[in-house]
């Protein structure tokens, strides 16, 4: 199973980035073979539609669950259509969030935040 953590940096110690569409990095972990792929989020500075393109990327990467903070309405539509589950992570490192996920401590997100919620606090 592949899961993705939205992260503020590239390492396992980087903290969770609470914005889904405009996060800095996607850290994809294949739990079956314990392999890690880091993808810088090209959509983080896009003019619009960051959630759509980030959602599309998750679908293309075959991710089955996402650990993040907030998901906007457009991203939610893409992720729902792709059948990807969304979990609310904690303000901790990538490694810690992966462990929380494995032990079933994270809750599923079904509600969205308003459009453009993640547009402040840009890199």
């Amino acid at each position, binding site marked *: 199973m592949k899961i993705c953590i939205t992260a503020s940096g590239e390492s396992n110690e980087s903290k969770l980035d609470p914005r889904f569409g405009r996060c800095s990095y996607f850290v994809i972990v294949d739990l079956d073979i314990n392999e890690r792929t880091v993808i810088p989020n090209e959509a983080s500075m896009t*003019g619009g*539609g960051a959630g759509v393109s980030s*959602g599309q990327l998750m679908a293309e990467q075959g991710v089955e669950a996402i650990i993040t903070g907030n998901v906007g309405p457009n991203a939610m539509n893409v992720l729902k*259509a792709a059948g990807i589950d969304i979990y609310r992570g904690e303000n901790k490192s990538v490694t810690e969030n992966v462990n929380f996920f494995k032990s079933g401590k994270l809750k599923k997100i079904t509600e969205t935040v308003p459009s453009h919620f993640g547009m402040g606090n840009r890199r």
Partner: protein
Amino acid sequence: MTIAVLSGKGGTGKTTVSASLSAVVKPSQYVDCDVEEPNGYIFLKPDILHSIPVKVETPFVDDSICTGCGDCAEACQFNALAVVRNKVLVFPELCHHCGACYIACKFNALTPSERITGVIEMNEEKTFVQGKLNIGEPVAVPVVKKLKEYLKTDMPVILDCPPGASCTVVQALEDCDFCILVTEPTPFGLHDLKIAVSLVKKLGFPFGIVINKALENNSFIDDYCKEEKIEVLMEIPYSKEIAENYSDGILPVQSNEKWLRRFEQLYDKIKERAKK
């Protein structure tokens, strides 16, 4: 002659200047291009008699033809299309109506479908025209474009532009003959004035500056104008009287003879300096 009033920073006094000019120059046409928040009507009090919807075309997907190949989503530069599990998702409000997806689709599975994103309103004589973008719509350019189809050619036109220096402003400025840049003596006013100046220079329009909420010493703005050899056309003082009247929907030119003459002088200067 078309005169565009812009500012960079919002709240500097574009509407004060453009509505005052249109109240002084008779006959003239006032066009409110600030379609996200048109407010000229508060001062000019027109009788709106005509209302015309602004339509845009966004893609409709025929699922019986679509193979889910993803070419359309790849062609879209605005992330208005996504393809997941071989199904196209359309996000109409992100669409910029460029038409790239129709060309990219090898199977002709996409067809344009009409959507209303705003409205153009005007009085009987069309001397007052305003555009309104529907609430929640992020793409204002089509409304400004439509608005400009109603510009008169037999009298001076005054365009009250949106704030900023983005696509909507560029669309509003297109084909104008003179630009008035309204600023205020604050750091933010100067910062955004510089952006607006570089825009009108790039577009090649003659322009001058009006300092609103001016103090006794505006060296802040004056020094910059001197350095850049930009003409300050007029100063409107930081005045409680003007502000109070404004809050009641009364323009300076409607309350004080002095301002009527000052705006007439402003118009005379613009006539001399404009392209046509």
